[in-house]
């Protein structure tokens, strides 16, 4: 683009070109710089909006400290951090096989909620009648089944009629919410639609800690999924289908079968996380049992580049931001919306940094002239 002879043709001020490869260290440096920049902008916003900091500017350090304090200041907060991390990670893991296949499952919220509903339904109808271990097993089965079916419906339609999976799975979330509302009306006759906590069907505490079992299950799931995706034949097929359907057909992979099988797995893992929420934490179901984590999990999986191990870090980061923001709201006595603004700013910078990892900026007269035929974008 920069080699023309004609003098009146000026090179644009800046243009972008796609990087062919980037050193991992450089990529991490860019990410780190983005977080630092994001925190700086957050500080500026805090200074503008929080009166306490305007009065005493040195309080800005308390503001930053709150991110650490929110998750690590007490052992209760730390366990809460790990528990929330595990649930978020569990849903993100469930999405990952589908995402690797480039099947954009945006229905984790609904699939997880159906898992919660399935488990609680078993508890509601047979909780008194069955011995606890059998009840827990049946609840698990119901959760897997419900989550699986919720993912299977859009997968079948995709395989048969090539429907758009993103919209389909998204819409299934709303259906799931209404299904829960429907059952709550039946189960709670007094009209409050608030189902009291079940007395049965509770996962045992391990080592005297209510959260440890959940954390362990998700940890095993993480490692298991990592192995499944990278070392099993199924995982290999998922990667081939995701990268190129034509290649998959060329080597004789049954693409429909892989789509259906993988989505079933994805939904069942959502159901599993729903079971952990139902039997391990809430003991009840509301339309808000998953609380939007099904959508946050999409980000966790993307930021972790669909690598289960990296997703431990990304879900931890998001949880750190969440609890830090809550801490800020408490410490500085500000409205509940400000923490969301701060979380949003930092995530904006992190996601934005991916652009600079994938593209390179060239300025006019810079030393990097784009070679002819390079993928330059004006």
């Amino acid at each position, binding site marked *: 683009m920069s*080699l*023309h002879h004609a003098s009146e043709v000026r090179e644009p001020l800046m243009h972008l070109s796609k990087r062919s490869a980037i050193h991992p260290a450089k990529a991490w440096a860019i990410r780190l710089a983005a977080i630092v920049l994001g925190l700086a902008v957050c500080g500026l916003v805090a200074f503008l909006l929080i009166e306490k900091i305007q009065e005493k500017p040195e309080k800005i350090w308390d503001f930053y400290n709150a991110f650490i304090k929110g998750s690590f200041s007490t052992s209760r907060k730390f366990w809460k951090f790990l528990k929330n991390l595990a649930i978020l990670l569990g849903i993100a893991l469930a999405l990952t096989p589908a995402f690797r296949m480039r099947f954009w499952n945006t229905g984790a919220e609904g699939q997880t909620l159906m898992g919660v509903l399935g488990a609680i339904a078993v508890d509601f109808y047979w909780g008194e009648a069955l011995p606890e271990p059998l009840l827990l097993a049946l609840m698990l089965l119901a959760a897997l089944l419900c989550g699986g079916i919720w993912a299977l419906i859009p997968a079948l339609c995709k395989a048969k009629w090539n429907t758009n999976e993103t919209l389909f799975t998204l819409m299934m979330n709303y259906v799931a919410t209404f299904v829960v509302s429907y059952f709550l009306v039946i189960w709670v006759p007094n009209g409050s639609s608030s189902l009291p906590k079940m007395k049965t069907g509770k996962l045992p505490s391990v080592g005297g800690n209510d959260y440890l079992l959940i954390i362990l299950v998700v940890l095993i799931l993480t490692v298991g999924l990592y192995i499944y995706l990278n070392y099993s*034949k199924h995982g*290999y097929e998922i990667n081939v289908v995701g*990268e190129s359907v*034509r290649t998959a057909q060329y080597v004789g*992979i049954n693409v429909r079968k892989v789509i259906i099988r993988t989505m079933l797995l994805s939904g069942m893992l959502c159901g599993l996380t729903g079971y952990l929420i139902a039997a391990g934490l809430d003991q009840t179901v509301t339309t808000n049992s998953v609380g939007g984590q099904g959508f946050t999990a999409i980000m966790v999986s993307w930021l972790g580049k669909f690598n289960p191990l990296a997703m431990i870090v990304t879900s931890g980061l998001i949880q750190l931001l969440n609890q830090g923001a809550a801490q800020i709201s408490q410490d500085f006595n500000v409205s509940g919306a400000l923490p969301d603004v701060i979380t949003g700013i930092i995530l904006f910078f992190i996601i934005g940094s991916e652009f600079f990892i994938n593209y390179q900026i060239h300025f006019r007269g810079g030393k990097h002239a784009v070679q002819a*035929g390079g993928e330059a974008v004006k």
Partner: protein
Amino acid sequence: MEKQLALQMRGITKRFGPVVANDHVDLDVYEGEILAILGENGCGKTTLMNMISGIYFPDEGKIFVDGHEVVIRSPKDAFQHGIGMIHQHFKLVDLFTAAENIVLGVKEEGRYNLKAINAKVAQIAEKYGFHIDPQKKIYDMSVSEKQTVEIIKVLYRGADILILDEPTAVLTPQEIDKLFQVLRRMKADGKSIIIITHKLNEVLAVSDRVAILRKGEHIATVNTAETNEAQLTEMMVGKKVDLNIDRELPRSPAPRLVVEGLNLDDSEGLHVLRDISFTANGGEILGIAGIAGSGQRELLESIAGLQPLKSGKIIFHNPKKDKPVTFFHKSMKRVKELGAQGAFHDRQGKPVSFDGMATGAVRKWVESGDVLFKEDEIIDLRDKTPLQIRELGVRLSFVPEDRLGMGLVGSMGITDNMMLRSYRKGHAGFLDRKKPRALADEIIHELEVVTPGVNTPVRRLSGGNVQKVLVGREIAFAPKVLMAAYPVRGLDINSSYTIYHLLNKQKENGVAVIFVGEDLDVLLALCDRILVINSGSITGLVDARTVTKEEIGLLMTRTDYARKEDA
């Protein structure tokens, strides 16, 4: 000539990395003429036209419109100078009407007045003899109607120089006649028309002058009235270049793959392949020549089990005669069935019968290697999936044209790409990367693949190295039939010779090699026989040792030649 010059190009050069697409091209276009630009695939016709219409910017050279030098940086600039291009792939919004598409992006004074636009469109249509309903939606239109919209779109913007890229490729003969009438009217109106094509009869029918491009260079411009097919073909294909590729006579060729009466339609019901019949012999290289998009890709994909055929047979002759029976690709049940049909004999030539034998005894006998096939196995591949074909024991290798989009997975390393064909082996649910890894090392070593490592994503490798990886894998499974589509496209000389050598080696080993190529010199030097395909039909089967380049060029381009008897 008294005619006024409309467009001049001087020294236009365009490079894509190391490839020179256009090399100092000079070209003149006059007002009120139809200029045909003729050339083989990849000779730089479209690139040249893209530079006049603002899609690419030339690296060197000048463009003059009406005698003034102009700088064309975008299609908008091109329109300002009265240049409009009708692309091969239409650029229309399906949900809009014809009129809406025509005015899309035009900045006009005053309010958006659909009535006035419809009237203006109708007026243009009438002037040049188009038939069009301005209020019809694009999705309701035939291909020819869509093309009409594209042409009017350009005229509406006031273009005086119209460029049509392969306008007849998608039209029926009647529609082509109609288009030519329109073009002649536009010419009479003083417009300059440039038509890119590789069909000789159309060039002769419609153009005033013909510019011939070959390998990015402008060879000559001749008056259509003073030339003929033979002269044009010769200029287009050039003199024969001796490539020094070793070629031995086929050793005892025997039919390996027999294709009979193959017909294939695309998803819109258009004929892609018509009545294709040929035989590929073991121990020879069968070349397939033709203009790109004549059905070569579909033919290979049909054989590989990737296209649902309308009719026809694909018969594979598995050279099993006097070879031991194994359980690799046959169940015990199938072996017993074949035994009952008398398909086997023993080493002494006596017929084998499993009558009354226990399964264990049959297994022992077969595994001893003393049970032999009486004849070659005949297998019909029609309607089989690629997986079924492999499970039948048919060793069919296929190097597709789209290397990274079909043959390989770009984001995976060489090792993981080696597994694509073989990863299913074994009953374990987990992958065994040991053998693929060894194969990857072997291919890197033997074919001198330049790569930072076995796990570097193959899309980061250069074109030649990508192709070595793909061909290496396809050959590693000791194929009986090897199909390769444009295996040296975009490769440098050394890599190309590596590939020729590999194909020759396969031929020596008795493999039936099917080679789809575009460079006629290569086809003539490498192949034993050449099948010429034109618009989905076979137009000739020639002996590569005796045929001339011009003969093949004619078979490739003369549409009235179609369906002549096989040589």
